[in-house]
């Protein structure tokens, strides 16, 4: 990179290119975050916001079981969703990349992500209709005699997970597929020439090569999933609360911005820890 970059550091022209984006990020991302961090040290007393500069909102998180529980619920759901989505999407992306004839691949891929363009709010809602007691799934199961009583699918953690997995399977299929088709075909040939069978080739060659792609997808899934409000709100039936729901309760019902800020920052801490875990695979530069 450095080798081909032009030696123009003496003039300020390059900053002209980078500055708008940097300023935008500083003004509308970094600064708001700092304001929020400051706000988390305030306190809501009655109808007023008081600048008490204390950690009282953070203390609340650890003292009151239901906040901590929300965080654990969020983590559990997110991990289940991420793992399930990868396990479902990888073979699918593999089939698209390897088994579908080249001229149909594009169509197959577009089809695989087409439902992404239904509105996001509507997607959760349609899952509610699909999973409802006399929704489509139960009607089919009953008609086929597989079950005698309708399964209780909607309004539960399972429903939330299904709603999430639906979305992330599409997303991960796309990222994993992109990764698979970029693999140089001669790697596989080389492995086979060296006597590896299909499984060995996959395990020792393909999987390690696609791992970075999987990890980027997994991290994206993690971030999007743990911060999502709509899916658990529509599908979860409030059987349990996830972090975004608890945060939105603070904002929406009593304008308790300090508590909401503290919870948001705690959520961010968790995401950051996850990021560090994923970091070794996530690089923007290619080597």
């Amino acid at each position, binding site marked *: 990179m450095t080798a081909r970059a032009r030696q123009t550091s003496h003039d300020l022209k390059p900053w002209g290119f980078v500055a708008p984006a940097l300023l935008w990020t500083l003004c509308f991302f970094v600064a708001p975050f700092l304001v929020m961090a400051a706000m988390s040290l305030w306190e809501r007393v009655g109808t007023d916001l008081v600048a008490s500069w204390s950690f009282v909102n953070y203390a609340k998180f650890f003292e009151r079981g239901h906040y901590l529980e929300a965080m654990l619920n969020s983590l559990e759901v997110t991990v289940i969703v991420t793992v399930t989505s990868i396990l479902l999407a990888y073979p699918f992306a593999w089939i698209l990349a390897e088994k579908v004839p080249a001229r149909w691949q594009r169509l197959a891929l577009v089809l695989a992500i087409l439902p992404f363009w239904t509105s996001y*709010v509507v997607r959760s809602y349609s899952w509610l209709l699909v999973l409802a007691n006399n929704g489509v799934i139960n009607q089919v199961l009953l008609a086929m005699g597989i079950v005698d009583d309708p399964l209780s699918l909607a309004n539960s953690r399972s429903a939330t997970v299904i709603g999430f997995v639906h979305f992330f399977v599409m997303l991960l299929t796309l990222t994993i597929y992109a990764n698979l088709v970029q693999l140089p075909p001669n790697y596989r040939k080389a492995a086979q020439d060296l006597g590896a069978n299909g499984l060995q080739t996959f395990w020792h060659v393909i999987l390690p090569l696609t791992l970075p792609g999987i990890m980027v997808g997994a991290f994206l899934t993690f971030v999007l999933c743990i911060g999502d409000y709509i899916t658990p709100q529509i599908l979860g039936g409030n059987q349990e609360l996830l972090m975004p729901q608890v945060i939105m309760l603070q904002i929406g019902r009593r304008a308790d911005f300090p508590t909401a800020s503290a919870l948001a920052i705690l959520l961010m801490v968790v995401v950051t820890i996850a990021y560090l875990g994923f970091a070794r695979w996530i690089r923007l530069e290619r080597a």
Partner: protein
Amino acid sequence: MKRFSGRSIASVLYALAIYGFIFLPVVVLVLFSFQDGRFPIPPFKGFSLRWYEAVLADRRLMEALTNSLVVAILSSAMSVLLGFLAAYGIARFMLPAKGLQRGLLTAPLTVSYLIIGMGLLITFNWLGIPKSLLAAGIGHVVINMPLCFAIIYSQMGDHQANIERAARDLGAREWQVMTLITAPMLWPALFASFFLSMTFSWDEFIISFLLTRFDVTLPVEIWNLLRSGLNPKTNAVGSLVFGISVVLLLVLELVVFRKAKRS
């Protein structure tokens, strides 16, 4: 050429199962948008277009749709512009602390939309800036610019740098190089990032929900509609959005595909 081994059949079945899973909610959504009755659930009582009529007659929904389009297009254009400039600056020039800059520019990707929206809400509140579509648009640029930057940056390779250098050697000015050489060469990346931004902005809920008031975007209005109860109108508007998006997608696919073929 093709042998139908057990493994192939398993592959086909698996792919069909996943397609089924992916399309199940869409099919149900569209089917029951034609429901002749108040409940968008089985049994299907008959075919009716009245929920579509209701959607098209709903001023608030139609305005929200327009708002969403405007916000999506403008915020995506802004995201691509800022992302492209930054990528160009970082890839082509010597700058101090490049790693830090890249890190800063892509940092919003690792933060939940909810948190970005909340930060903006609290800040705007504190500054006395009222909620508006503009505020939501600003938020959308915050979430989409990093993506545009990352996509465009990853496509800026040595190949283009050489051509750029050749242009410069022939006396082209920096802006000429950028607009006449780099941008056209990066057209697929620019287009992809614009299209992706559009999609995300079009579909984004929580930031718009927190930052808008009267003029809302479509997902927020759909959320309002949802909260007013069970109603096949929600199916109808979802199906319409889906239909329009698919048509748009196909048109783009054809245009871009053709273009790619020609060049």
